[in-house]
Every structure is written in C-alpha cells, then in structure tokens.
C-alpha cells in the first residue's frame, strides 16, 4: 500500500472546477515533484493532500488512514515563508520544535532549533527578526523549521518561487544537501513551476495540466545519480531528454485552444536558463 494516495480527487470553488479526477500515489522515502503552470491548481492540490483543505470528492489517505487534517507527522514550507515577524529566526523555529517535542527540556529545544538553523547556514543570524533577513535567508529559516520537527513527510509549495534565480539555484542545492544529510530517506512532495528545479531534486515528476479541471499526467522517473549539479541539465543526455519531455507535457497541457504555436523554448527543451513554465 502506498504511503500517500489520492483517489479520484476533485475540487471546485463555486462553479469553478479547479481539480478533477486527480490520482496520485507515492512511497515513503520518495522525493516527488508536481510541475504545473501558475493558477493551475497546484496549491489547492497540495492543501488537499496535506489535509489543510477538504477535497470536494474522492479520497486522500496517508499511511493507510484517511486524511482529516494536517498530520502531526508532516511539515510544510509555504511559498511566502510564513514566518512570524515578531519572533526571531531562532524563536520561529523553536515554536515548531516546542510543539513537536514537548517532552524536551528548554535547553534541548534551544539546542535542537539552533542545530537546524546552523544546517541552513544561519548560525550567525539566530537573533534576527524576519524583517532583518533577506528573502533567501527567510526561506532558509522556513526550511530549517520544517526539517527541525523531523517530519515523516514534508510538503513544499513553490518553496523558491519568490526568490531571484541565483538565490534559487543555491537553495535548491542546499535543500538537496539537507535531504541527503538527513540520515534517512526524506519523504517530500514538492510543487513547483520550474522543470529544472524538479529534475535536480526529485525521484519522480508529475505534471498538472492547466486548469480548469486540472489532472495529473503519468509520472516521469528521474534516475540521475546524486548529488546533481546544475550543469547536468545541459550536458547529461537523460536530463536533456526529460527536460524536453516535461516541457512538452506542459506545453500540450497549457496550449491555448485553436492550436496557437507552442513556445519555442519548450519544444527545443534546452536553454541556458531555468525554464519557468509561465514563460
């Protein structure tokens, strides 16, 4: 039985059907990405699978049990950081640690939170408020907070979507490193609008067709060895082929009616920059 499973899930907001017939499953220890254009329903999908939003129809199960709310074994990283501005970096992480490990002593909770902040390279910014941190650093705090509760599964909603390309590339590598150093296979479901990011991090990639009534394509497995360097995307034959294929899926799913020409970058599948789906 798969660890997480969605069966025929649909969701409408009023008359607007956002998701229809979504089927999905993943095993424990897998890193799975879902790529889709903006406003295709990615966030809605992630909220449903994590239990933050009730599906309109269909079933969602985790570890064999029906999902009814956000699980105590899960953590989530939002696109917009979602840090509390009146708490320091350390206090933001601590708040999660206190709730996840209430039996720890204060000192141990502090030490635990600090360790994860050091892991994302923020050992020198523990006392700083979010307003005193750059966008990249804020997202590092959010990632540290998610890892610090040592969740059984991690949900990531466009975790680097608000960052500039350079910071984005650095944080992608950092997230990959955190996953490999976690000491056990990390189970993660990541939503992104960036094909390259998905290839660098995932074991498997699915695409969400452009809404309304979006659904998932069959998965594309990524068998590239880790760690994966960014230039792999341009030189490795498999990576290049997958890039082209995913871009094709997305272009097909997002092509306007009446057959307007697809974006040239998608059909070539290779370019020197990251390919955002909206481009």
């Amino acid at each position, binding site marked *: 039985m798969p660890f997480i499973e969605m069966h025929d899930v649909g969701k409408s907001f009023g008359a607007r059907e956002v998701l229809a017939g979504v089927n999905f499953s993943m095993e424990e220890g897998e890193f799975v990405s879902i790529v889709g254009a903006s406003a295709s329903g990615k966030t809605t999908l992630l909220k449903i699978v994590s239990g*933050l939003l009730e599906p309109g129809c269909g079933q969602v199960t985790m570890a064999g049990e029906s999902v009814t709310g956000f699980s105590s074994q*899960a953590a989530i990283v*939002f696109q917009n950081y979602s*840090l*509390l501005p009146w708490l320091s970096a350390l206090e933001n992480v601590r*708040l999660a640690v206190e*709730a*996840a490990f209430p039996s720890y002593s204060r000192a141990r909770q502090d030490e635990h939170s600090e360790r994860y902040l050091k892991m994302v390279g923020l050992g020198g910014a523990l006392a700083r408020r979010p307003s005193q941190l750059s966008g990249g650093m804020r997202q590092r705090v959010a990632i540290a907070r998610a890892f610090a*509760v040592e969740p059984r599964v991690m949900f990531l909603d466009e975790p680097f979507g608000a960052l500039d390309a350079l910071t984005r590339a650095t944080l992608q590598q950092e997230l990959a490193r955190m996953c490999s150093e976690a000491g056990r296979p990390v189970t993660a479901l990541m939503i992104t609008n960036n094909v390259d990011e998905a290839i660098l991090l995932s074991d498997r990639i699915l695409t969400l067709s452009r809404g309304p009534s979006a659904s998932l394509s069959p998965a594309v497995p990524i068998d590239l060895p880790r760690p994966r360097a960014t230039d792999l995307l341009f030189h490795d034959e498999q990576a290049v082929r997958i890039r082209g294929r995913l871009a094709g899926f997305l272009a097909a799913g997002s092509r306007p009616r009446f057959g307007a020409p697809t974006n040239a970058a998608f059909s070539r599948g290779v370019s020197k920059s990251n390919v955002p789906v909206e481009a």
Partner: protein
Amino acid sequence: MKKIAANMVLALVGVTLVMLLWATLSQTVAKDLPSPLKTWEESKVYVLQPFDKRGEMDQGILRMAGYSLFRVAKGFLLAVLIGTPLGFLLGASNLFYKMFDPTIQVLRPISPLAWLPLGLVLFRQSEPAALFTIALCSMWPTVINTMQGVRAMPQDYHNVARVLRLSAWKRLTKVWLPATLPFMFTGYRLSLGLAWLVIVAAEMLTGTPGVGGFLWHGRNTTA
C-alpha cells in the same frame, strides 16, 4: 534654538491677545463674565495651594485633578478588561459576531450620559455609577479595534498556527495577541480619550469631587 525662541514669543503674543479680548468682553458686552484679574483673585487659593483640602468640594486644583485622573484610570481599566476579550471573541467567532454585533451596533451610539441614570439605579451610589458610565462609553473603540485586528490577521498566520499544531495557549500568546496588538493599542488610545471626555460631565451630574464636580460647585457658589 532661535526658532524655538521665536515660536515661544509668538505663543505669548497669542495668549496676551486672548487675555485682552477676554478683558474687553467682560468690560463691555458680557458684564456677567468676570475679568481675568477677578478670576485669578477668586481662584488663586485653589491654584497656589493645589493640594490643600479644606472641605469636600473645597480642595486644591491638583488634588481635584488627581481624583478625576484616578477615576478615569479605573473606568478605563474596566473598559479595557471588558472590551479586549469581547473584541477578541467578536473577531474570532463568526457565531458570536452574528449573535452580538447587532446589539452592539445599537448600544454603541448611545450618548455617554444616558448610561448614568442606569448606573445610579444599578449601584445607588455616584462613584460606581460614574465608573460604570465611563467604562461603558469608552469601551467601544477597544472592542471594535480589537475585533478588526483579529479579523485582519493574515491567513498566513492562521496557517502557521495550524501546521505547527500550536496549543490554544501558544496560539493566543505567540500568534493572535502579537498580530492584533497594534490594533488593540489604537483602540486603547481612543478609549482613553473618550474616558477623559466623559469624566467631567459624569462628575458634574453626580457631584463627586473631581474636576467636573469642582466646576459645578464653583458655578453654584459664585454669585
């Protein structure tokens, strides 16, 4: 420095002009209005011995102001203690909001002193009646602002509280209170202003010692 001196001179000129106008008026059209000099002579005993107590209504001006301030503080504190949780409940619970908002909208615009008779009936004494009036009148900005602060809380913060699975206490102290604090303080400031407006009138009507009572007593005892 020069600028401050110039400003002070201008202010003094302004005061002098108003005094002159006052003196002229009391000499010409408004014969019942005491002149500035007469006013000073009558009131200097209260001003020069500001803490003296010669009788219940015959006390120094600072002593009277002290009574009023103390009463305002008590009424305001009462307003904050009742208004803040009430605002929180109204903001946090839709059920509560739908149940009580119409009543509150009716009670809110009631003129401050209209509460005083009710207070006197309820408490039979002027002191608690005055406090009751101050609290009820000055409570509304606190209630409304706290409520709006809770309602205006970004969805993000709700999400954080939810996914971190914070306890009710942590949710309140680490998320809700800090998020609404700026709104609450706006409410407190407005409430304090209202409380100070109401106190003079309430004291005049109840005849309790304080700034309002002092004024009323003064009006009744001077010919």
